């Protein structure tokens, strides 16, 4: 049996006195595409941050490439991370190529200047996301979708084995989100990456992922999309009665039928 890329055993996380994740056990195999679904405040981003070692669990064990996230050392170079864009200052005077190059800051070594191989990796990553023509543009002047592609290029510039994305389509319209997932699906296949995607977009994700984890503080369901995305599973995750619109076997859209007067 192959060692899972990510392995969480009975993980619980709290912010101060509030428990945000409880007893999470899940694993991600090499080459898998895991979608983490859940409503707002369900702990999706916290789960990702725990996997990355940015948030410490108060209980349970986290292993990434077989090691604790804080003890990964050079193995960190195998992880590409695409955060939500909200924390980035758009007035920051930085060019697209430099944003991507900074993704390799640790790989270059402390106090070291970029070498040719670093610049080549930047060019390749920009080409992968079709942003080569924007290399000299200021990052903050790009559209939301273009900025997202640059942040993905920054993660890909590391030539990672594991790519983790947090709500990558939050700043995109429906059409752009569709093409983004199409691109992500192809990149997953072509580069043989292990992907972990956090999203609340049930419909689009279910068409591309190989496994789904439904989260609402606890892990409500985990497995193949067709086994997880049942009406019962989604009701447990969203915690309300809902109507599901289907494309084929899986729900495409979730609409709450709860009467707002009664809540």
């Amino acid at each position, binding site marked *: 049996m192959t060692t899972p890329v990510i392995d969480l055993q009975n993980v619980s996380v709290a912010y*101060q006195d509030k428990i945000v994740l409880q007893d999470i056990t899940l694993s991600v195999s090499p080459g898998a595409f895991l979608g983490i679904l859940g409503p707002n405040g369900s702990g999706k981003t916290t789960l990702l941050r725990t996997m*990355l070692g*940015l948030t410490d669990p108060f209980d349970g064990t986290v292993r990434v490439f077989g090691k604790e996230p804080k003890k*990964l*050392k050079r193995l*960190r*170079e195998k*992880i590409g*991370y695409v*955060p939500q864009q909200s*924390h*980035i*200052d758009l*007035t*920051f*005077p*930085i*060019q697209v190529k*430099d*944003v991507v190059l*900074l*993704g*390799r*800051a*640790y*790989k*270059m070594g*402390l*106090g070291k*200047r*970029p070498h040719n191989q670093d610049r080549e990796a930047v060019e390749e990553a920009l080409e992968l996301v079709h942003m080569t023509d924007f290399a000299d543009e*200021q990052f903050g*002047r790009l559209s939301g979708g273009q900025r997202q592609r640059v942040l993905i290029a*920054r993660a890909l510039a*590391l030539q990672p084995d594991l790519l983790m994305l947090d709500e990558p389509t939050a700043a995109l319209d429906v059409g752009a989100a569709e093409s983004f997932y199409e691109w992500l699906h192809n990149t997953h296949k072509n580069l043989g990456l292990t992907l972990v995607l956090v999203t609340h977009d049930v419909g689009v994700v279910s068409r591309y992922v190989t496994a789904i984890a439904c989260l609402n503080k606890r892990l409500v369901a985990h497995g193949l999309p067709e086994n997880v995305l049942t009406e019962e599973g989604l009701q447990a995750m969203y915690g309300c009665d809902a109507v599901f619109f289907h494309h084929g076997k899986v729900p495409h859209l979730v609409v709450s039928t709860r009467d707002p007067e009664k809540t």
Partner: protein
Amino acid sequence: MIDLMQFTFMQRALVAASLTGAVCALIGVFVVFRGMSFIGAGISHASFGGVALGFVLNINPLYTAIGFCVLVAWLIGWVTEIGRLREDAAVGIFFASTMAMGVLLVSLIKGYQIDLFGYIFGNVLAISRNDLIAMAVLALLVFLVIFFFYKEFLLLTFDAEMAAVTGLPVKWLNFLMLTLMAFTIVLSIKAVGIVLVSALLVIPAASAVQLTAHFKKAIIYAVFIGVVSCWSGLFLSAFLNIASGATIVLTATAVFFICTFLSPQRRKMRRRIGTLVKTQNS
């Protein structure tokens, strides 16, 4: 001006003004984009405690201020990290308490200490040879560290979370940045004073950002603006016989408004508005 430059005190003042303008501007670009301006104000006011300690112990106040400011900078970083406190609250605690400590120490000094006012409001014309050597050593340290860890500080400033994810020693770099801020503030207090030094951390950097969208260019422009503002302020104060620290800061403020007016982005926006008005009128 040539006559004035024959005096040793004026030559020292010019070197001190250059060092102050350049180093404040260099670190200021990182301070402005990391939102650390208030920490700058906090450390500079805390230096009052360090300076007063020097007077009480009869040691060069710059030396005591170095140790004191570095300690306060680290305490701000440490309290923020472990104390579940926002950075501004941590700054607020040390800002007031170290000033209070300074006032207390000053009240212990017997007799009138005119020199203390030189530290509070700055007097670039009264810098001694020893002060200048200490300033040059601190400035060299700050320049070397920024040069060496440029890309690390750039990533930490642009996206601290990503810096942590990629494996950079973020905590260590944060404390290093706080130490550099403390060094910069101490080397500048003789020239512009405890009360005004935080302005020099912010204004040249904020001016430079109006003129460019490149981080490296912003640093170069900020250093140029910082040095020119300090020189202009120094000569104006010498000719007009007015307070040097205040003149330097006010000159820098005037440069900020000029840069804002000349900002390429603003000019582009004005052109766009002009075109829109013309289109609507025709």
